[in-house]
């Protein structure tokens, strides 16, 4: 009974989570981290490198969500004043994001019975 009363008091966004839950990594987020493993990339370049696994219409929302989770970080591109257009944004994986990716790959291998005994 006490559990039920606690559940109703938790906000919707946190209802099925807890603070000590392991970090979650979706399939798209794993692809992004794989592609950012070697360095910084633009969002459009990530889409091109993904070879169809990521879509242009959703990759920026995914990157924004990953930034909030701390998996990636971004910086605005420095461009001369005479160059027109909005400054582009470069994304790169954080050490925390790469650790999450490594743990995700290890867990996947283990679940697929491919981990060394």
């Amino acid at each position, binding site marked *: 009974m006490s559990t039920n009363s606690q559940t109703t008091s938790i906000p919707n966004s946190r209802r099925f989570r807890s603070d000590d839950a392991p970090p979650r990594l979706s399939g798209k987020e794993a692809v992004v981290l794989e592609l950012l493993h070697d360095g910084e990339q633009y969002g459009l370049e990530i889409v091109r490198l993904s070879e169809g696994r990521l879509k242009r219409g959703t990759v920026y929302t995914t990157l924004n969500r990953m930034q*909030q989770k701390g998996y990636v970080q971004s910086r605005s591109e420095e461009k001369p004043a005479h160059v027109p257009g909005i400054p582009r944004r470069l994304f790169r994986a954080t050490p925390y994001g790469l650790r999450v990716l490594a743990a995700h790959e290890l867990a996947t291998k283990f679940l697929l019975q491919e981990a060394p005994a």
Partner: protein
Amino acid sequence: MSSLRESLPGERARRWLTRFFSPRAMESVFDPFLADLQADWLHAKSTPSAQYTRWSLFSAYASLVAQIAAFAIGSLFGPSYELAPAANSSAPAVDGGVPVTRTSRYAAPLVIAALITFGLFAIMSALIANQPGEEVSDSSIPFILTRLPDPPDPIVEPKPQLPERPEVIPQPQVTGISTTQQSKKPVGLPQGPADDWIKSIQPGFTKPETGLRGSDQSEIPIVRVEPVYPQRALDRGVEGWVEVEFTVTEVGSISEPTILRSHPSGIFNRAALRAIERWKYEPKLVDGQPVARPGMRNRFRFELNKASPRSH
């Protein structure tokens, strides 16, 4: 430089987006998208080998719409998205960003989703209304009206309002028959059984087997739609012809139209197929049962000195 910046793709969309989304959402989601779009466009402009077609730009804007939809959905179910700047400063801040009220969190995505839905309907109706490359003209009228011969002068007009005068001869039914009805009875042939009439003037006559290309009256279309002269060929002054093979179904409609030959190749095929698909035939009866007629052929000629393309 300012004119170049104004002419970059995405500038107007960015101004529009800033009305609905918070600066943080613009900075983290939409500005990177538009910046990549502009960089891609500028790269294509500066590279002769690269091509940035209208389709590429349309595809990019379609991706932007998908981006807005994904963001709206994410703001509904996600923990820390925000849309419009919140007016209530006492609301809790999310990730150090702009405070968000619960009302704005749900209302703005719903409004945007409704706008996207109505926008898609508007685009679809616009696409249906104006087919690219197809010019609406008088030649696209779906029915060909054949002028009937003038009735004989001495025909007395019937006066239905005076039924008490039975001595007036009723009007023959030739006058006022529509084109479709007129074509059901071939002009110039006796209306009785044809075989009996022929036997009366040529004893020993037996009716030959009429093939698909015979002079069967049912092979004359009762509805003929002339093709629309393609605007591209009209602009270039191109003439040609298309030979089409098709099947007349049991009910008289057209099925499986295929291009046999055409000259020049591919210019008039679409117009010919669109026209032939609208043709209607009178169903052919064999032993009282309607039958299909495969292998029918027609040739459309597209000539500029004529008012419209004609078929044979």
